[in-house]
């Protein structure tokens, strides 16, 4: 471990998210360009809190129609039947199909809601300047970043079910109006994760630590 836990920002240095190079902006400047890869550099992602909140709120709004509206409509000789995501999970439940039912339950219902709650928690604690549980919070961020893409499973299930079951007039399956809202939840939460700057989690802790040690900055 080098130094006493000093951050690049405290030293007036910016690290490049593209290539990792550490560099110093012209004195007084808040932004510059990476001399190695030409990326725009700032100390922290610009407007990170506002942008993350915007994507998160959009995701939370879409979450409701995503779960209430049907994602698939099955038409047979007996009539048409529409299923929401949760009904899809129940339909898949059978002595042989239950493991897949659990996959869909986890990927489509538990992961999206957990992601929204986790990002909300990270935003609120970070904006309040929390200095505790930093390790747990950064781990939570990485978890959200890693599992987010898996919510797309249901979109692919419905896509290929609908593409294949086109046996009119016997039976046909069409995507329902809920599908676009469900896809929007996945995309908005992924964009929220991208907009959030994990270094913000540590900033209050870093400045507190620096203050107690009375470090002088360059």
């Amino acid at each position: 471990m080098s130094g006493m836990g000093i951050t690049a920002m405290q030293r007036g240095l910016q690290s490049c998210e593209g290539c990792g190079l550490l560099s110093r902006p012209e004195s007084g400047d808040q932004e510059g360009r990476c001399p190695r890869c030409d990326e725009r550099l700032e100390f922290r992602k610009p407007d990170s809190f506002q942008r993350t909140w915007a994507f998160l709120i959009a995701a939370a709004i879409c979450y409701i129609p995503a779960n209430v509206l049907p994602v698939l409509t099955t038409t047979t000789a007996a009539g048409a039947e529409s299923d929401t995501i949760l009904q899809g999970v129940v339909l898949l439940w059978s002595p042989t199909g239950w493991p897949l039912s659990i996959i869909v339950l986890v990927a489509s219902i538990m992961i999206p809601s957990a992601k929204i709650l986790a990002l909300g928690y990270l935003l609120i604690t970070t904006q309040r300047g929390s200095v505790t549980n930093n390790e747990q919070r950064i781990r939570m961020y990485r978890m959200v970043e890693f599992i987010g893409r898996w919510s797309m499973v249901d979109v692919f299930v419905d896509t290929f079910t609908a593409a294949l079951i086109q046996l009119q007039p016997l039976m046909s399956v069409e995507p329902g109006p809920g599908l676009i809202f469900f896809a929007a939840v996945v995309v908005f939460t992924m964009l929220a994760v991208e907009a959030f700057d994990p270094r913000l989690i540590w900033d209050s802790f870093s400045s507190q630590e620096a203050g107690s040690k009375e470090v002088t900055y360059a």
Partner: protein
Amino acid sequence: MSYNQPVGDTSLIACLHCDLLQRIPELEPGASARCPRCNKELWRHRVDSLNRTLALTLGATLLYVIANSVPMLGLTIVGRDASTTVVGGAVHLWDNGQKIVGVLVLFTAVIAPALQIGLMLAIVIGGMRARPPRWVGTLLRHHPTTRIWSMIEVMMVGVLVALVKIADYATVIPGLALFVLWVLVFVLAGMSAAFDSRDVWDRIQWADEAQRDGAGELAEGTS
């Protein structure tokens, strides 16, 4: 906006997850360094990175072309049959009033994987030069985005679920693409794991070439 002034020593870095200043140690091939504060992996020194990545990328290119030119799933029911390719799934959504979702499926299952493979091929070939040109850096900077949106492995789990659902009504015929795509999932994972971006960044031509000399010479001495 003007170019920043690089710190003299490229082994001095800040963790991208917590901004802690630190020095990346010299590593044995195969070893990795983690941030002491937040445990983020900072660098893994890959063995023979460019050659291995090139081999896996060429393999992925071949598998990708096959996977997108043959049917993935088919079914038969009372004498009628149907089949679909990956693109066919997206096109069906487009034709049935789900244009946006159709585009999203096409992007995550077809376009983003193509970019992920194609950009990597260009990066590796350009990166093999002693002093990779600037365009390699531009591609390398944007490559992580293609990786985030390339969701072949997620699609494959979705296809598995769809297959079991359909098996209730009809006889499912797995197509060649289904098997090829499963292999592609692992080849893509290997491709990402084999590539060492630091190796390319250390040798690349700088955007502000005048500043390279000071920092670059030190980098060649330490990496």
